[in-house]
């Protein structure tokens, strides 16, 4: 009696999965080739290899407009014990004010081939943890169960972001080799992005097409093929980028950061086309970027506000009359250096107002440097240079 119970439980335990011969890159379908793989021929020292890595970003309809949905499917073969470290996965998520990126789904499985049988071990969802990195970033993290030399690990997660400026980029390269890496981005006509490819001369395949599926924004009333409603009909523009057999990026000394060298593409939002007509440039050219910065509350407007605040200081504290331009500059720079202290934070943008800075006497790099810029602008020292 006892014995039969044990055998029964063993049968349940060893979930049989149908084996395909060739990798279909379909989640859950493991090929015999992948099971048999003991080393990765082009790089026999590799401790693990990414069998495939698929990314897919699209704009999904939400009540407030469009969120971006990013789905990633990744399969890794662990080739040696040193490769077991790749069984720890981290997914960074961002939030600002009341807007949160979310990870509505994580599926992960370990596959072990034991005595001629493929065991599929699911990730226990209660072992997914969330680490807080700071006030803006958190990390969803988990470890695959039952990972050893030879294990195939596979995961698929969905990340949804309300931040259009955060259209996920894609890394085609890792510290271990990658056999196949594909990123698909489905663009909608309302947002335009500039894309930057780093370290990539040519994609193994790059293709764009319009999705035949029609989508709607707003009220669409089609009569005999024309839209009489106030909304618009549009199609997704689908861009696909593929890289194959990407070598491992091995740590090279004297580099700034792996992220600056690895093969990847990044997207930067450049223009927003309103469905109601008209467009807003987000970031496109350097002169436009400068214009934007000068208009921004936490940059250009901060400088002009500093100018106003500084009037008092210049008149009451700094004796600038009768000084040469160089001396005026030196006086102002020394004044800021001695009176204001860096709070240790590096930033492009200001958080506090110049008034705050004057009161607190400490600020981030942007606050102090832009404040000084405001001071220097006042006695018409730098204006000549700007023109």
């Amino acid at each position, binding site marked *: 009696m006892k014995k039969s119970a044990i055998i029964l439980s063993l049968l349940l335990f060893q979930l049989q999965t149908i084996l395909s011969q060739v990798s279909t890159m379909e989640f859950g379908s493991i090929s015999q080739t992948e099971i048999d793989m003991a080393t990765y021929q082009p790089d026999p020292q590799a401790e693990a290899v990414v069998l495939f890595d698929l990314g897919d970003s699209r704009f999904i309809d939400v009540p407030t407009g469009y969120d971006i949905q990013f789905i990633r499917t990744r399969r890794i073969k662990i080739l040696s014990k040193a490769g077991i470290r790749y069984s720890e996965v981290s997914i960074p998520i961002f939030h600002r004010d009341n807007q949160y990126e979310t990870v509505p789904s994580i599926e992960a499985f370990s596959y072990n081939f034991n005595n001629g049988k493929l065991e599929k071990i699911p990730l226990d969802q209660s072992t997914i943890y969330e680490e807080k990195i700071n006030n803006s970033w958190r990390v969803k993290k988990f470890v695959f169960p039952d990972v050893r030399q030879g294990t195939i690990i596979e995961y698929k997660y969905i990340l949804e972001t309300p931040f259009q400026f955060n259209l996920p980029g894609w890394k085609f390269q890792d510290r271990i080799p990658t056999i196949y890496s594909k990123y698909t981005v489905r663009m909608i006509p309302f947002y335009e992005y500039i894309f930057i490819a780093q370290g990539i001369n040519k994609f193994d395949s790059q293709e764009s097409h319009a999705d035949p599926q029609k989508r709607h924004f707003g009220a669409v009333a089609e009569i005999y093929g024309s839209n009489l409603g106030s909304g618009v009909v549009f199609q997704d523009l689908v861009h696909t980028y593929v890289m194959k057999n990407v070598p491992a990026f091995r740590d090279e000394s004297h580099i700034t950061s792996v992220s600056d060298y690895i093969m990847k593409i990044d997207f930067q939002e450049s223009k927003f086309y309103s469905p109601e007509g008209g467009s807003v440039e987000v970031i496109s050219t350097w002169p436009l970027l400068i214009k934007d910065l000068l208009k921004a509350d936490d940059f250009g407007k901060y400088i002009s506000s500093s100018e106003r605040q500084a009037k008092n200081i210049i008149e009451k504290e700094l004796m600038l009359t009768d000084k040469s331009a160089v001396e005026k500059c030196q006086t102002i720079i020394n004044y800021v250096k001695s009176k204001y*202290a860096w709070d240790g934070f590096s930033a492009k943008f200001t958080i506090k107002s110049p008034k705050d800075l004057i009161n607190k006497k400490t600020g981030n790099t942007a606050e102090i440097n832009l404040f000084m810029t405001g001071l220097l602008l006042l006695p018409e020292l730098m204006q000549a240079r700007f023109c």
Partner: protein
Amino acid sequence: MHPMSISKHFLICRFFIFLFLFSIFHLKTECQTGSRVLEYSTNIRVINGSLEKINYVLIEIDDKKSDWMSDIEIPFDKKNKLNIIEACVLKPNGEIVRKLNKKDIITKSDISAGSFYEDDFIDEFRLRGNEYPYLIRYSYRITYDNFIDVCDWIPILFPDVYTDKANLTADLPSDYMVRINSSGIFDFKVDSMKDNNRFSWAFKNIIPLKKELFMSQNLVPFVTISPDTFKYGIPGSLRSWGSFGEWVDRLNQGLTDLPLSEQFIVDTMIKDLKDKRQIIKKLYHYMQDHTRYISVNIDIGGMKSYPASYVSANKYGDCKSLSMYMKALLKHAGITSYCTLVNAGSNPVHFYMEFPSQQFNHVILCVPLEKDTVWLENTSNCLPFNYLGTFTQDRYGLIINGEQSVLVKTPSLQPDDLLQSAYYYFQLNPEGNGHAILSKELKGDQFERYVTGKQELTESEMKELIEKEILPDNSELIKWELRRDDRDSPSLKIDIEMSVSNQFRRIGSSLVLNPFHLRFDDLEKPETRKMPVRIYYPVNYKDSIVYDLKFIGKYEVHLPEDIDIQSKYGYYKVKLSQNDQGIIIVMKFQLYTNEYPLNEYPGFYGFIDNIVKSRKKSGIVINPI
């Protein structure tokens, strides 16, 4: 029992440690200036079974290089409430420059190194002043509902910063029984009130402690207050080691739930084995081969293990959970074993046997057999069976066995266990360039690191480690191999082939060879040494070095005299000889396990200094005939 009646114990402890540390923390009467902690006070209150801790800090910052002290980190965990009462920057006259804004506080996870996840957090903020000097002041309150110690307090915030004064007060209900352990020099008083007793400690002028070679641990003054009874998840008692062990046992009750599938595996594995030791070994290897160390501590997870079924499903766990799983495997095989709490680390902290309290940070497994005991470290996939190593050897551990829980000493590593022998073979031309091989047997700490590295590091990471630690000066690695006799061997052999250059120093037409590859770190001079010496496990080296010099026939070799330095601390011996092929050197060095008080330091220093000096004098001079 009134708490004063148990203060006898407290006085004994205090007196003992007082003497022990007297020479280290001497009182400094003159005023210290510069960046420092002006005041650090902790107030503790126990009310209705919960514990409230208020910390107050006042720091003076005089220069940019001390600004780091204004980066404040306050650790707390999810179970406890943290409330920041005040945080501000002040002028030296006490005028407030600015107060901390709530939105400038960053809360982040505080996951200790080597751990995957913990529900501990840090509130982080920065209190920078704009003009030096400036003061920062902050205070906060943390409330605990679950706690084992009332406090484990040290009168310093930063180990390398001078502290003017540090105070601890503990307000404890009169009927709340505690035991107190403390060290250092302080003013102590007890004020008895109606329902309360206030215990106060005042420390003054605490000098920073600089790290020294072969130093003892536990030299920082401290106050530990342990309650007689406590609640951490479930109620427990610290009256004796037995009662504490009983609590640990109860907290971890019913966790040896090995799934049926795994019971079946155990049955199959051991069905032909008769010998108990063989069964333990077989199951230990199985555990090593199928699990790995991943630490996740949530809620009271610091003391409570995950069940064996969790490890069985995930094939990972931390020290507690892996030990519990191993215990479950053994239990199914009919073998009794006991989880054993220890304080791990190569330089063990001082253990207070007379003071039952939570002094541990690691769990191993003890399997008593008829004639001897097997010890199992369950967090390593590659350490030998029944090997504790430098991490847990030679210290007290608490064997968890209900009310019969007892302290036992773990086995200690002997000089032979740690004999690292190396064989160097150099083939050199008169320019000092050529080829060399090195065969070395790694043991102890080096064995433990390399055997783990062999498994977990990539080729290039391993190469880097070897180049940094094992390769002699002026050599370049050609190839290397790590060998191990079998999986339970407590040593690892490394064979290295390398090209070498500039092995001779030239003085005129003479060649001078300095053949010593064992490196000695610079010891503090006796005038500046502050701490006693502690050799926490034996050091034992033997190097045989052969110089194959084909050109030697045309040269005359002046060998220095053999060296034989013996002392109570250890010995150092060098024998040099020559044949028509070249030169042979055999070097032996040992340091014995022991502790020496500070007044013996000059002797110890002299021994090491003699070795260093003798090596400097012992260059081998090779002159052309």
